[in-house]
């Protein structure tokens, strides 16, 4: 039973992200259709973002935004409080992984966009998006293919 409590429950996030990542990677490699590969890719990338976000999670922590109801801000109005040590880190989730993941999301989407544009160009040349058919066409060669 302690296996369940000690490993499974608190690390559920990490189990989930590994499962999602493997689903995505499986699709990227095994799927025949290029679009399905790209769907697998976006699942693969969002899983990593899930991992990063779950690093910054704290039990019972508030969102990392200083709003005026927050205890620290209220105290700081009183002259005694020292403005520099206002924030108590345990109250807030760690914002740094979140910031990093903004970049990762944008990267994921731009890669998806580039890949989709390329698959449209592949469709224009090979008239199919199935990998086995494309490879068959290449093996036959033909004028347009092996320039």
């Amino acid at each position, binding site marked *: 039973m302690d296996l369940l409590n000690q490993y499974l*429950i608190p690390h*559920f*996030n990490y189990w*989930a992200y590994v*499962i*999602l990542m493997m*689903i*995505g990677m499986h*699709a990227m490699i095994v*799927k*025949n*259709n290029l*679009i*399905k590969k*790209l*769907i*697998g890719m*976006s*699942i693969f990338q*969002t899983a990593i*973002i*899930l991992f990063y*976000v*779950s690093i*910054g*999670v*704290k*039990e*019972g*922590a*508030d*969102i*990392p*935004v200083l709003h005026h109801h927050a205890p620290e801000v209220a105290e700081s109005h009183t002259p005694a409080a020292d403005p520099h040590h206002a924030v108590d880190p345990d109250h*807030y*989730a760690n914002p740094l*992984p*979140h*910031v990093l*993941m*903004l970049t990762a*999301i*944008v990267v*994921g*989407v731009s890669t*998806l*966009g580039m890949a*989709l544009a390329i*698959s*449209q160009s592949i*469709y224009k040349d090979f008239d*199919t*998006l*199935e990998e086995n058919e494309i490879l068959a066409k290449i093996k036959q060669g033909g004028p347009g293919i092996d320039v």
Partner: protein
Amino acid sequence: MIVAFDIIILIFLVITAVISLRVRDLLGATMVLSIYSFLMCLLWAEMGAVDVAFTEAAVGAGVSTVFLIATIYHTRRHSSD
């Protein structure tokens, strides 16, 4: 950060991911993928990462789905696997 809530969303996430990859109609797959993104955004909002959540909602669900539908429009809707 409610653990029970997390576990439910994660299970749904895994289910939508598998469905999105198994369904043969690409348009359907795209729709399920956007559900997957919205669930992910819900999960992150609940975990305290608010900015990542609405970025994922806007970008992950919104723009990717638009890209995918545009590509399917220009190519073929049916996928062999």
